[in-house]
């Protein structure tokens, strides 16, 4: 195990985040604050409680998930795409590092940054609404599983993309709709039957639902199902990454 390499990449990636802190940290905080003001304060006043939870508090887990997903994906995809784009990836590929170590370092750094942002948002939310966390242990577990899964997913996008447009296309055209339609701002019980059924195919629903349960003990689907689906997606991403490094796809000719 080349621990020095993992440490070096991790440190390098974290330094990059720190250098671009306006973009990596302040931007998500600002965006989330806007969501709280618009959905929580302005619209929320006219919305009744959902499942016994005040609307402003109800959207807190959803907003954190929204940021966690988008941050995980963008951190990891840019983290690996950028060296491919500039060509500096040659060094990683010629170093005595295994694929596993490369993934741990890049995904670890992407997940760390996403978790920091999630923590900041949780703290920011406190300024707008009051919320409780019933199951902090489960909350952390969901946070970790989600950020690792989506950092892996971002890593895959970063490997797959061969231009900046492709790098953004999946987050924009796939992830954002899934997040918005995954019960971030509402309970799927509020949807008509057909759309409720469609929502069940949305993986993000299970993440948000499980995560919200860890806050308020209410959920759209059972926690076990949430956990199962999250883990399944994690395994899928791991398998894809393993296959990529095994075949050298997009990395070696």
């Amino acid at each position, binding site marked *: 195990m*080349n621990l020095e390499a993992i*440490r070096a990449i991790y*440190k390098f990636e974290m330094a*990059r985040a720190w250098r671009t802190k306006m973009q990596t940290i302040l931007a998500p905080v600002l965006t989330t604050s806007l969501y709280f003001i618009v959905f929580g304060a302005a619209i929320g006043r006219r919305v009744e409680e959902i499942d016994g939870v005040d609307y402003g508090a109800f959207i807190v887990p959803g907003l954190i998930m929204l940021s966690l997903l988008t941050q995980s994906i963008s951190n990891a995809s840019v983290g690996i795409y950028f060296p491919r784009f500039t*060509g500096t990836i*040659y060094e990683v590929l010629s170093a005595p590092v295994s694929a596993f170590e490369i993934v741990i370092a890049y995904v670890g750094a992407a997940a760390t940054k996403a978790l920091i942002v999630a923590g900041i948002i949780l703290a920011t939310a406190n300024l707008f609404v009051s919320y409780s966390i019933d199951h902090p242990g489960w909350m952390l577990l969901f946070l970790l599983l989600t950020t690792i899964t989506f950092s892996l997913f971002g890593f895959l996008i970063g490997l797959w993309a061969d231009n900046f447009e492709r790098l953004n296309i999946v987050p924009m055209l796939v992830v954002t709709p899934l997040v918005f339609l995954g019960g971030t701002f509402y309970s799927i019980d509020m949807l008509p039957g057909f759309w409720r059924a469609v929502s069940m195919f949305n993986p993000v629903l299970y993440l948000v639902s499980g995560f919200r349960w860890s806050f308020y003990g209410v959920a759209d689907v059972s926690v076990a199902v949430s956990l199962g689906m999250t883990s399944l997606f994690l395994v899928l991403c791991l398998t894809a990454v393993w296959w990529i490094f095994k075949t050298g796809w997009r990395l*070696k*000719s």
Partner: protein
Amino acid sequence: MAPTISVSSLSKTYESGLVALADVSLEIQRGEIFALLGPNGAGKTTLISIICGLVVPTDGAVTVDGYDIVKDYRETRSRIGLVPQELTTDAFETVWATVSLSRGLFGKKSDPAHLEKVLRDLSLWDKRDTRIRELSGGMKRRVMIAKALSHEPQILFLDEPTAGVDVELRREMWALVRQLRAGGVTIILTTHYIEEAEEMADRVGVINGGRLVLVDDKVELMRRMGRKELTLQLHKPITEIPRELTETFDLSLSEDGTELTYSYDTQAERTGITQLLSGLREAGLRFRDLRTRQSSLEEIFVSLVRRPGDGS
């Protein structure tokens, strides 16, 4: 002594069908400077890329200090430093951050003193906190060398190290390469500046169309393949070379008739010089001065890679 790098029957055919390497076998000795010469697209970079783990070979094997580059990649890669041809550097990082990353990537514990020495040797120490994109092209090239040296490699690959580099920096790099070799580092450089190989290399390999055309000691190669010319400055200009001389010797006369040039093979049993000189005396030609010139590696190289049918 066992070779430090052993390449056996290496082939690479890219997906496009391009045959970049065809059955290349080569041994690099420890501590030597080996120059790989060849025109663009000859397969130099592919060969290096395979040894460094960037390209997967279609066939054949490579060992580094007895370790297989695929099976024991950690052993082989940690011994190798690579300076690629393209100027591929981070843009927004500082020099210090990027060389620190390189050292860590190759599994070495951080060692600021070593990094300082590398940066000082490359005149980069003053620039250590500068972002790389603010550096000039020549400076970026130095950064890439610093990255490759950051982890104390025993083998250094320099792919076209002086392409687009000014004369001063080129001299500095040559000095650095010699200094590294003195420290026991094996150096493999590719170049299409023949001058560079002539100046630096102990041995030369010529690669063309994916095939290793020749590998030889540089001095030996120049001696064996080289032709020599003897030029005689005549006391008085002549209009024609006396017939009795042209019958025996390969002579040419300069336009103004003052210089007579004789080409001969240094390997031949008799070079014919003594005979020529007595022939000249018999013909009544006196000369004021003479000089000899050995053909350069460049001329040898051109004669090697020129394919039949290329014309003149």
